[in-house]
């Protein structure tokens, strides 16, 4: 990685940073204000050993937007989203969810968050229905609501027939869907989905997209990470391009695209396009 590992700001500086933002930057976090973005990231840093995974990410996700996070493999998308959802403590930086500081007051912020992480297991010895119910009860919801919503979610995600099957026996796509249901059960205001369409069949993907669209239409906010530009271009209204742990461009899809297709613009921003030659032996 070419980024020099400059030292992250110390905690005191972090706090003043946050305070300055809440007063200074107009668009950012005025606590609980109507104008507060659904998600605000400021100066997020994460380093694993010598490897800087996220190098100072600043990002505002407007409330009510369908936000796409795109970037090449190893860009730090998953790390950023883990820090934005309270699963990974940042070395420095701050996160606000609808004006609530996530790392200072995790319980309040996490109540508004629905998360679908990538590359982690589920409690897969539970059945699909059990897992969704468990996720609801864990959040302190009452049983009647949980039961009703579990049935709705199972139906909406085409899982009703497999509700009594162990999640460990689910296919990859079904697993994604049941995880999505667990993220939706408490009706969060902000949904953060890491690679939600990976391994999901086209019919289910269409269903999920329409669920997400109607969720956004009724005031919810969705963040999806993906490396399928086409999908992001069609589905999202906002997009951020991330590479090497930094945000290269962010804004509405039209702004970021600037007349090109998102894919071309992405390659232009990120660079590293090969010549397509060099594997002369790979012929049959």
């Amino acid at each position, binding site marked *: 990685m070419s980024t020099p590992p400059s030292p992250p700001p110390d905690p005191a500086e972090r706090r003043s940073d946050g305070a300055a933002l809440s007063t200074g930057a107009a668009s950012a976090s005025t606590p609980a204000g109507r104008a507060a973005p659904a998600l605000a990231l400021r100066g997020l840093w994460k380093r694993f050993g010598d490897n800087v995974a996220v190098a100072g990410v600043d990002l505002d996700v407007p409330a009510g937007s369908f936000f796409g996070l795109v970037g090449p493999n190893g860009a730090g998308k998953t790390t950023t989203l883990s820090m934005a959802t309270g*699963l990974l403590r940042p070395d420095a930086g701050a996160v606000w969810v609808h004006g609530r500081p996530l790392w200072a007051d995790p319980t309040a912020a996490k109540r508004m968050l629905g998360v679908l992480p990538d590359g982690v297991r589920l409690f897969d010895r539970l059945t699909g229905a059990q897992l969704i119910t468990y996720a609801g009860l864990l959040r302190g919801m009452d049983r009647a609501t949980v039961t009703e919503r579990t049935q709705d979610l199972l139906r909406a995600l085409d899982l009703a027939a497999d509700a009594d099957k162990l999640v460990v026996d689910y296919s990859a796509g079904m697993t994604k869907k049941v995880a999505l249901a667990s993220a939706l059960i408490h009706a969060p205001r902000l949904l953060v989905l890491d690679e939600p369409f990976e391994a999901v069949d086209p019919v289910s993907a269409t269903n999920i997209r329409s669920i997400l669209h109607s969720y956004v239409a009724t005031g919810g906010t969705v963040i999806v990470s993906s490396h399928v530009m086409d999908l992001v271009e069609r589905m999202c209204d906002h997009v951020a391009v991330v590479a090497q742990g930094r945000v290269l461009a962010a804004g509405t899809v039209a702004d970021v695209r600037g007349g090109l297709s998102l894919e071309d613009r992405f390659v232009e921003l990120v660079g590293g396009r090969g010549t397509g030659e060099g594997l002369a032996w790979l012929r049959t």
Partner: protein
Amino acid sequence: MVAHLIRLKLALLRNGLRRSPWQVVGLAFAALYGLGIVVIACAGLIALAFVPVAEVTVALTLAGAAAVVGWWVVPLVASGVDATLDPRRFVTFAVPRRQLLLGLGLAGVVGVPGAVTTLLALGTVVSWFRGPATVLAALVGALLGVATCVVGARAWTTLLAGLVGSRRFREGAGVLLVIPLMLLGPLLSGIAAVVADGAQALPGIARTLAWTPLGAPWAIPGDVATGAWGSALVRTLLAAATVGGLAVVWSFALTRSLESPPATRGAAARTRGLGLIGRLPGTPTGAVAARCLVYWVRDPRYAASLVIVPLLPVLLHFVGSPGGAVMLAVAPLSAFLMGWSISADVAYDGTAFWLQVSSAVSGRADRAGRVVAAAVISVPLTLALAVGSVWWTDRWDALLAVLGMSIGILLTALGLSSVVSARFLYPVPQSGQSPFSSSTGGSGVNLLTQLVGWTVLTLLVLPELVVGVLAIVRGDAGLGLATLAVGLVLGAVLLVAGVLLGARLFDRRGPELMQQVVAMA
């Protein structure tokens, strides 16, 4: 290819050490322990060179057979045993079967237990330094013996891993685990016979063992030294056939596990409705407890942690004199082990732990739920064992003392486990893996955490232990009542304290725990 596999094993060991300084401490610990054994045993082996042939044969046959049994049984019982080179990882590489077996077998010698065994086996050559023929025989015997150990360990673990990992097993037949362990019975009765008859029985046992696969390789040099060429030849053939047979078993088991990975075998299991999650109270604590109980039933890793419990009475029966008071230790010991069994609960969750973090479940609800689940399993078992052991020994006067010690230990252990699992994660088999496998280089840390944890636990339960033992020895009813009081009160206080402290750690360190389980996955 073979050299490749050994290099791979060394590289895995080295990289495992690079991940955390604790791994280095663990390995140093294991190496020191191994070195201690080697030094003491080497002195013994050298001393044997000046002892009459008959006695050397007896000593080495018994020691060798014990080593073989250790290699065969320990990997099945302990989860801290190395399974770094899981053959399933080689599925996609076109490695010829023969070379894979040879490579994995030799790689099994790399590591502390393998090195110690090999060194000591070769050390027997010194004991047999009585002429070229015996030296040669000792060398052949040692190689065959080590091969029996290593190949046997691989064969049994691979064979049983398939059994343990299969769906039918996973669906609650955790008891099956006990069956191979029951093989210990005959061995223990042998030990009991020695206790009864004194050392007189040893030569007889050695003679018998020398005609079994366990002892044959170690007895070959003795035959050569006394000129019994016929039996030397038969024993050599027997030992060689054992190694060959084990290799065939291993190869068969390997083929089976490679061609039909247990994870996908069998029909999908179904549960009507919500099961326990629908029945326990609809609160976060209730949900956690229900989820953990489902795992106690469905996850073989939890069953494996309980496997020693039904075995304890058998073990103690043979250790103690018949009808002796040692049997009364069954319930306290089981309570100790069962209470400790949730000390790795977060590690057992693996990366699925994200749900706990992301739903901001309170530390109290999480800790309390896990304790409740463990208590539902262990309290009835402990009480039954306590009453059962008193009945067996006919010491009804000791009932209160045994109950007091068992309850006190169980509550304290649950409390301590609640703290430990929120603070110290050690590598455990991942969900779906064989409960007998362990992660790369983890066994040292594993051992260290458990050792320290057990020491602390012993210190915490010392009050009821001392009063209880006094009550049993003196047959004092008043002291028995005092034990029950101390056990209940102190245990309850420590349990609450442990859950509260564990809850605070959990609330503060949720993301750090998450990062650790991700790093171990």
